[in-house]
């Protein structure tokens, strides 16, 4: 069934109802991970390494265990040793040895804040005291923080068994370069030889944290027979179950994982940190255990995304046609391999129709927390470099930056450098919307500047389950397997209500635990409204079929003589008008007599998520004396496919843009010379506050994705891709200064102003 065509007939999809979980969230009743309490519960805390890189010589917990109130201590010795291989558990590839060692350091602590032990005690104060009493002896090792320093010969090596993959012959010596990846299209040397104009740049970005306001938290309980429950704030209850079971060596069936309300994730809650520790402490102590990260723990030991060095070279003809592009990307992975270098290599240039491309990427470990996914992982970094370089090219060619993108922009049939041919994309529609937006033509005052930049993200589908049940009174329950991180319960209920033809408030959506609904890949990659929405839509369609069958039984007519319209069964064909239509409630009343409960669960693996494109327009005012950049006006235009709940689509776009503005101007990880993080808190890790930002206008361009019943494309990732370059290009427009290094913090910008003045 396809609902795209009769758009005008949509009654619920595309409207802006109050979200079903809203009242609990404005009254303080919503239950997040840290709000959970179980009878007999005690408190777990983590002891963390004070060193960036150190061999763990010994851990003596005897004094802690002797402290009254301490119920259990765990260290790496309590976890099974896991082989160094990527395993497949339905969540995609994951190196569980690395995951295990990230949850609890074994042999070596690889970054400041790396967990080395955990305790459970009857009060938080006792647990804190016990942490102090655990005696860990370290042999401090030389450390390395920055990506190019980590790649240099002679750098301290984190993993003696890391030999760069993707290079021939296989290196003889271990290094911090986990892998090299590359993509080529055409002949890049020949392309540059034809170019009239070439721009080159070396861009750097700093690691930034997802900075969700809710710190990680969970409560675990384990029965004597090994059956366990875990309640946590996570982007995937099935991920928590699978990862925890793997790290602990437990059977998945023994673990039931409950998703609590989640206070933001943005990719940062797609792995486990505390859950395996809490489960083990609960098992050892025989008591339910609650664990919460402090804000400092969150910064030191979870997230962030990669910092990177990106070298870009782009060549074009005089008229603006790009003939060649070369990009080298060096991404920090943190302490274990696995930066988003793959998408990094693909996304930056995916927006353009380019004949000759070479992209080389490196995944590099150093003594920092292991990176986690963060909105369009890898894409914002590469796009900062590419979109800045394109701005330089536009300046050099004296071409309008939007025109340069219009001329070279990808369209249906464009073959990307990674081989995929674009299909059903809306990039040119987005550019057209940008050109016709009043913002693009609005006058600027002296000292102000305007920048534009674009962004791309694949969006993903994947495994999802959704169930629709008609209750005895005709109300409808919708169960999905995906934590609701930004309003997905509303969109699930809306799609189900649309298919059923019933009012939204007749549908109650919930997020099921791992025993209540079929497997669902985690909430991430902007996949839930697309993939889980597809499962819910299909389940609702099956329910409609059942309702028609039941009505046919009640009327004693053939089922193909029943029509479903406006939430009611209608006799059709020869029987038209013969019976009064039956509502869902009327059919539900007779469910027992017509075959039993009415409901359906659909599990699927959704393919064909439509890619998304965005174009952002940013105006700034620069105080050249202080280097302060004020964002004056911001417009974010994006192809959203079909907006199910437009207000929450706008919210995704506005929120992504705001995070990108933070990334552009102030957010960064700052380390001291000992490899210790100096700004592990919201005071000095400076996310945008309300007074930093203007209203952010979100413009939704709707180019439906033909592979989704309502035309949905993922929307949450794209909006964080363009802002860094949009801001940098606006600063360039205001000052003439090309800021190649993020963040564009006041000291850096003032130094650039002074350097230019000095150079004359």
């Amino acid at each position: 069934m396809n609902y795209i065509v009769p758009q005008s007939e949509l009654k619920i999809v595309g409207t802006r109802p109050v979200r079903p979980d809203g009242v609990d969230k404005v009254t303080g009743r919503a239950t997040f991970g840290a709000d959970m309490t179980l009878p007999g519960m005690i408190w777990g805390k983590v002891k963390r390494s004070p060193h960036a890189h150190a061999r763990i010589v010994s851990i003596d917990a005897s004094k802690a265990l002797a402290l009254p109130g301490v119920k259990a201590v765990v260290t790496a010795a309590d976890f099974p040793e896991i082989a160094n291989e990527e395993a497949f558990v339905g969540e995609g590839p994951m190196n569980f040895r690395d995951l295990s060692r990230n949850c609890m350091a074994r042999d070596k602590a690889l970054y400041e804040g790396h967990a080395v032990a955990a305790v459970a005690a009857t009060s938080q104060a006792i647990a804190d005291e016990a942490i102090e009493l655990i005696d860990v002896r370290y042999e401090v090792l030389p450390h390395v923080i920055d990506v190019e320093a980590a790649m240099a010969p002679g750098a301290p090596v984190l993993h003696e068994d890391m030999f760069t993959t993707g290079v021939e012959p296989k290196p003889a010596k271990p290094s911090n370069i986990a892998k090299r990846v590359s993509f080529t299209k055409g002949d890049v040397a020949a392309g540059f030889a034809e170019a009239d104009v070439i721009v080159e740049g070396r861009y750097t970005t700093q690691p930034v944290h997802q900075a969700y306001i809710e710190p990680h938290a969970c409560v675990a309980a384990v029965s004597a027979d090994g059956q366990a429950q875990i309640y946590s704030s996570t982007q995937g209850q099935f991920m928590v179950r699978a990862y925890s079971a793997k790290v602990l060596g437990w059977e998945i069936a023994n673990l039931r994982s409950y998703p609590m309300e989640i206070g933001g994730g943005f990719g940062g809650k797609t792995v486990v940190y505390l859950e395996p520790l809490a489960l083990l402490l609960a098992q050892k102590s025989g008591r339910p255990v609650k664990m919460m990260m402090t804000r400092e723990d969150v910064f030191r030991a979870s997230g962030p995304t990669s910092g990177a060095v990106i070298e870009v070279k782009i060549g074009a003809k005089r008229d603006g046609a790009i003939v060649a592009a070369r990009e080298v990307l060096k991404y920090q992975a943190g302490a274990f391999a696995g930066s988003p270098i793959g998408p990094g290599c693909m996304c930056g240039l995916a927006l353009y129709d380019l004949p000759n491309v070479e992209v080389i990427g490196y995944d590099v470990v150093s003594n920092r927390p292991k990176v986690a996914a963060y909105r369009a992982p890898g894409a914002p970094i590469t796009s900062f470099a590419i979109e800045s370089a394109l701005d330089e090219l536009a300046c050099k060619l004296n071409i309008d930056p939007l025109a340069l993108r219009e001329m070279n922009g990808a369209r249906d049939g464009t073959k990307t450098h990674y081989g995929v041919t674009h299909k059903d994309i809306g990039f040119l529609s987005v550019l057209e919307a940008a050109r016709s937006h009043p913002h693009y033509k609005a006058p600027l005052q002296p000292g102000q500047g305007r920048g534009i930049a674009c962004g791309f993200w694949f969006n993903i589908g994947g495994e999802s389950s959704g169930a629709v049940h008609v209750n005895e009174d005709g109300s409808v329950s919708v169960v999905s397997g995906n934590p609701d991180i930004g309003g997905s319960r509303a969109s699930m209920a809306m799609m189900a209500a649309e298919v059923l033809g019933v009012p939204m408030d007749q549908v109650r959506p919930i997020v099921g635990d791992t025993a209540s609904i079929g497997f669902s890949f985690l909430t991430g990659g902007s996949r839930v409204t697309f993939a889980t929405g597809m499962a819910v839509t299909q389940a609702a369609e099956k329910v409609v079929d059942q309702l028609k069958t039941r009505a046919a039984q009640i009327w004693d007519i053939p089922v193909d003589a029943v029509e479903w319209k406006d939430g009611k069964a209608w006799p059709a064909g020869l029987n038209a008008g013969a019976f009064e239509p039956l509502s869902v409630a009327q059919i539900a009343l007779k469910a027992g007599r017509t075959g039993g409960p009415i409901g359906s669960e659909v599990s699927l693996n959704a393919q064909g998520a439509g890619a998304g494109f965005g174009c952002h327009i940013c105006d700034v005012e620069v105080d050249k004396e202080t280097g302060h950049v004020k964002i004056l006006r911001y417009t974010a235009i994006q192809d959203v496919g079909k907006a199910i709940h437009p207000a929450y689509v706008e919210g995704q776009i506005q929120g992504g843009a705001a995070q990108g503005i933070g990334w552009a101007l102030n957010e960064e990880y700052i380390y001291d010379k000992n490899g210790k993080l100096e700004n592990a808190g919201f005071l000095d890790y400076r996310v945008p506050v309300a007074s930093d930002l203007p209203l952010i206008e979100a413009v939704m361009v709707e180019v439906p994705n033909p592979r989704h019943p309502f035309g949905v494309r993922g929307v949450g990732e794209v909006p964080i891709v363009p802002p860094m370059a949009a801001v940098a290009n606006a600063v360039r427009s205001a000052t003439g200064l090309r800021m190649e290094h993020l963040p564009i913090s006041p000291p850096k910008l003032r130094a650039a102003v002074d350097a230019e003045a000095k150079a004359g």
Partner: protein
Amino acid sequence: MPKVVFSGSGALRFTEGRTELEVAATSFRKLVRELDARFPGLGEQVEEGMAVAIDGVIYQDAYNAPLAEGSEIVLIPKIGGG
């Protein structure tokens, strides 16, 4: 026959420099087995770490995806997301 395009180093390191290959396969699963037979290790690489685009549509998991005469199949790194 469907045509497989090897664009990135993820696949190219198995294919001895080949960038394209025509494979007589009617489903993606058959294609993976065929590839693994031709280039040992590539099948596992595709299964564990790669997504696939068939005529421009990206599939994260595509065992059952039908392949048509002339389909273009591109192997790319698997994509996650925030």
